[in-house]
């Protein structure tokens, strides 16, 4: 809308006509107090804290509902306004306990702040206050009724933002009370957004309440370790005798890719880190076959010694490496470099949850610039969702899509074989057979024989194809040629952008960094390593290695001498029988004694994603910074372990991690194009205004190398600064010839195994979260007693979003 000019406190401000005054002021650095107003949620105008004086208007006006227009004149602070706010605070405090020192919100309470700023020192209210006991509504949500100031933020976030509608307002006037959907408890998605958004201490979290004070914690921004959306979460950490304990997860600064949102996993499921059964000492299998505690030196020596022996005696081809979906890009990159240059093998894989390689290849040159950031799920005018159930598997993307429909009237088209909750926001839904995902694309592309086409189906297709631009999200229902068909279809539309939905925080990073037997970092085929040979300072194995299944097949045949597993539990996930591995030397870097770790000869206690630094890439290709928050004495990062083992095996740390100066100086080229160019890494660093890193254990040294060498991770304008500032940067997949189909070789085996996680599960890691377990248990018990489906507590039906949209 056209800009208008108006005056606030004597300052001329400009904003698009119709902007809410409170927002226009915020943008200009004028803070107006608010309780009920919350950006993005329906206006409530319930609290009267935002009162301002508008010239030529009789009464004070609420800034949260006033839209700016040309020539208006406002005053936001004056004795009159202060008096009005003082009266409001006094009313709010009428029945509010005056015991901030024992309230869980003390120190970060908006009412406390407002009372300090405007409140009266005395109260005229002399009646006895009505006390009510606190109630526990769910494993995560507690309610303390007298503290509630009836701002209705919680109700709106649960209705509009979550489309769960588990909270409501009962009764009216002074007797109004926030009520949970099941009478005395909640059945909901347990996201905790209501707690986070509550301005006072009325809603509190089962994880955090009464444990500490906000000012006693350090607050570290990092990335959630669970699903592949990669929400930014701020972890509250406190010193503990074993290191640093994580006490809280939230996103109050709303700075990240996820804005206000966190799901239960990002907000509460960090508790695995504090579990008493975390491994803190390396374990070695002794002569009697028992795992016994050992020192780090013993464990690293044993690992390096055995690996070297086996590499010499049986060759790199007899060693397998399985990487992780939850380690950083730097660790993944280092792991594949270690596997290929030190162990001498391409037998490296990971639990693949989506076919990113096919996605990158399918995009190719024509799809350049067509990969979508997660941010676009909140702003795209039209979205096609093929397969997947984002509510369960991509909670942030689901939140964004709901927001997009609610605030931008976006049109959401859902193609699925089973009803999913997001259909309540959908403009249209196409129900297909479970095996009909490929046919669905043919149908959408115009082939009427692909699906039993009825009018509804054709209507869906026509509406979709008439969209001037379309964001296409597809789940792991599509792999290999299926992915190619999706991209082909999309590239035939007016303007389509794409994202591939996998599982786990760094599954995209694992694929990007080459934890694959046939592809190097940046999806370069192992047969054409190009400059990497020289960069890595020696020969690289050039035939594709064994994939994860083949690795275990080899073990069964007795052909696998050693297996090196980092942060993964393939034994459980792929149902590997323990006997399969009885002749294999197994090293496992893990937090817990998982099914895989139990079979290991060496178990190395690993730090988790919250205890290290580096970067991760979400399933949309948005790279973000991970910061060390927690700390557990005795554990080491996977990065450090790999470097230590490699050097103990005789590798040159400088070749693995470019640190210090002159790393390439001793490569000794005396002829050819590179002659005289002593240190390309140093040259690159200088050109990018970066310093050499000083330690072989510094993950950012590897980030430098990734940016320098990995197609798709090239430094972007402002990239490193943005990354370090905690912002997400969207990376376009490489479209180098490497990724073109000519080099793809024979069709790759389909090894995609979706994690099939729900809101309350998270692979092996989820099993170690008490909070997730308690919620799961609550819902399983509820399901047993009420016959409801505990995992989808929210019944299908017309949604708040849908209603709002039609309204």
């Amino acid at each position, binding site marked *: 809308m056209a800009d208008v000019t108006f005056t606030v406190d004597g300052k001329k401000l400009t904003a698009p006509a119709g902007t809410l005054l409170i927002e226009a002021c915020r943008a200009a650095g004028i803070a107006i107090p608010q309780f009920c107003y919350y950006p993005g949620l329906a206006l409530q105008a319930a609290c009267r804290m935002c009162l301002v004086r508008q010239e030529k208007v009789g009464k004070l006006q609420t800034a949260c509902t006033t839209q700016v227009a040309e020539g208006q004149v406002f005053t936001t602070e004056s004795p009159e306004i202060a008096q009005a706010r003082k009266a409001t605070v006094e009313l709010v405090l009428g029945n509010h306990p005056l015991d901030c020192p024992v309230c869980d919100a003390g120190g970060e309470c908006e009412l406390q702040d407002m009372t300090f700023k405007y409140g009266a020192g005395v109260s005229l209210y002399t009646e006895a206050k009505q006390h009510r006991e606190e109630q526990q509504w769910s494993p995560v949500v507690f309610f303390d009724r007298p503290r509630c100031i009836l701002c209705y933020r919680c109700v709106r976030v649960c209705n509009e933002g979550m489309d769960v*509608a*588990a*909270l*409501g*307002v*009962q*009764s*009216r006037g002074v007797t109004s009370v926030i*009520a*949970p*959907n099941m009478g005395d408890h909640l059945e909901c998605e347990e996201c905790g957004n209501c707690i986070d958004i509550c301005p006072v201490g009325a809603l509190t979290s089962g994880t955090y309440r009464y444990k500490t004070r906000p000012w006693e914690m350090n607050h570290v921004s990092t990335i959630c370790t669970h699903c592949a959306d990669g929400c930014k979460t701020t972890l509250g950490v406190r010193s503990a005798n074993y290191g640093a304990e994580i006490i809280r997860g939230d996103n109050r600064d709303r700075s990240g890719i996820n804005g206000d949102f966190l799901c239960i996993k990002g907000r509460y499921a960090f508790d695995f880190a504090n579990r008493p059964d975390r491994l803190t000492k390396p374990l070695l299998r002794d002569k009697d076959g028992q795992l016994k505690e050992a020192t780090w030196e013993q464990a690293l020596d044993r690992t390096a010694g055995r690996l070297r022996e086996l590499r010499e005696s049986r060759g790199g081809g007899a060693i397998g490496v399985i990487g992780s979906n939850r380690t950083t890009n730097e660790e993944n990159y280092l792991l594949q470099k270690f596997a290929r240059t030190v162990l001498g093998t391409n037998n490296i894989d990971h639990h693949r949850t989506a076919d990113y390689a096919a996605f990158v290849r399918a995009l190719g040159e024509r799809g350049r610039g067509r990969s979508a950031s997660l941010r676009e799920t909140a702003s795209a005018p039209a979205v096609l969702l093929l397969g997947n159930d984002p509510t369960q598997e991509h909670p942030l993307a689901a939140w964004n899509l709901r927001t997009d429909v609610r605030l931008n009237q976006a049109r959401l088209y859902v193609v699925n074989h089973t009803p999913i909750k997001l259909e309540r926001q959908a403009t249209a839904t196409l129900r297909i057979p479970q095996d009909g995902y490929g046919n669905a694309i043919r149908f959408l592309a115009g082939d009427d024989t692909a699906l039993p086409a009825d009018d509804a189906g054709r209507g869906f297709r026509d509406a979709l194809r008439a969209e001037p631009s379309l964001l296409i999200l597809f789940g792991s229902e599509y792999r290999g040629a299926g992915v190619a068909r999706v991209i082909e279809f999309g590239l035939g539309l007016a303007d389509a952008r794409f994202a591939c939905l996998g599982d786990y925080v760094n599954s995209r990073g694992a694929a990007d960094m080459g934890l694959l037997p046939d592809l190097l970092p940046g999806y370069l085929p192992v047969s054409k390593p190009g400059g990497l040979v020289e960069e890595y300072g020696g020969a690289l194995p050039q035939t594709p290695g064994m994939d994860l299944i083949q690795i275990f097949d080899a073990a069964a045949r007795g052909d696998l001498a050693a297996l090196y597993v980092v942060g993964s539990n393939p034994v459980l996930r792929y149902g590997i029988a323990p006997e399969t591995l009885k002749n294999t030397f197994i090293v496992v870097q893990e937090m817990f004694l998982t099914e895989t770790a139990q079979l290991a000869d060496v178990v190395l206690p690993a730090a988790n994603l919250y205890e290290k630094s580096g970067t991760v890439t979400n399933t949309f290709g948005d790279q973000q910074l991970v910061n060390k928050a927690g700390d557990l004495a005795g554990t080491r990062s996977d990065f450090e372990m790999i470097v230590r083992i490699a050097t103990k095996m005789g590798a040159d740390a400088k070749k693995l991690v470019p640190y210090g100066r002159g790393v390439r100086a001793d490569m000794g080229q005396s002829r050819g194009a590179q002659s005289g160019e002593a240190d390309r890494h140093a040259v690159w660093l200088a050109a990018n205004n970066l310093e050499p890193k000083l330690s072989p254990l510094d993950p950012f040294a590897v980030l430098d190398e990734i940016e320098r060498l990995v197609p798709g991770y090239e430094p972007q304008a402002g990239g490193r600064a943005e990354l370090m500032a905690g912002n997400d940067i969207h990376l376009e997949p490489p479209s180098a010839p490497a990724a073109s189909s000519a080099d793809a070789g024979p069709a790759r085996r389909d090894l995609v195994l979706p994690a099939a996680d729900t809101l309350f599960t998270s692979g092996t890691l989820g099993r170690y979260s008490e909070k997730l377990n308690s919620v799961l248990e609550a819902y399983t018990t509820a399901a047993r007693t009420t016959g409801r489906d505990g995992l989808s507590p929210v*019944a299908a*039906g*017309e949604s708040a979003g849908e*209603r709002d949209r*039609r*309204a």
Partner: protein
Amino acid sequence: MSAETQTLFSPGLAARFDRMVTLYPQRRSALVPMLLYAQDEMGALNDAVIAEVASRVGISELEVRNVISYYSMLHTKPRGKYHVQVCTNISCMLRGGNELFARCKEKLKIENRETTPDGLFSLEEVECIGACSWAPAVQVNYDFHENLTPESLDALLDQYRTQNGLADRGGR
């Protein structure tokens, strides 16, 4: 949403509800009138009624409860056959509303918002019912009785007790 196949309501009311939800741009707009009709037929808005109404208008039971708890004329517990609503708002108060209310309590031996043991009468003190010109006024179910005195009130209650010539227009 299609019409409910299994319903708690009489065929006539169920058909009426099927139609009502189609009359508004949003189904939920039919909520308050539906609740009133349902209450008249069923006597109270119990859990089963709430569940059916919620599904008919496509909102959660919690949202239906939010609305019921907002309006004082919507009830979740059954009331007496005759629900006596005595206005004590200003016009009625000036013309003896409080006395009428006291007389009711005395005669029916119940307090505000209570029901007589035989289930015949329930009593409620209400705000202005829009009959100020003929204050003091009492509403029994949907019938208004105006310009009352304690004596005429007595007679009125007796009449209801014996159903002496007073047509019950329903609506509890």
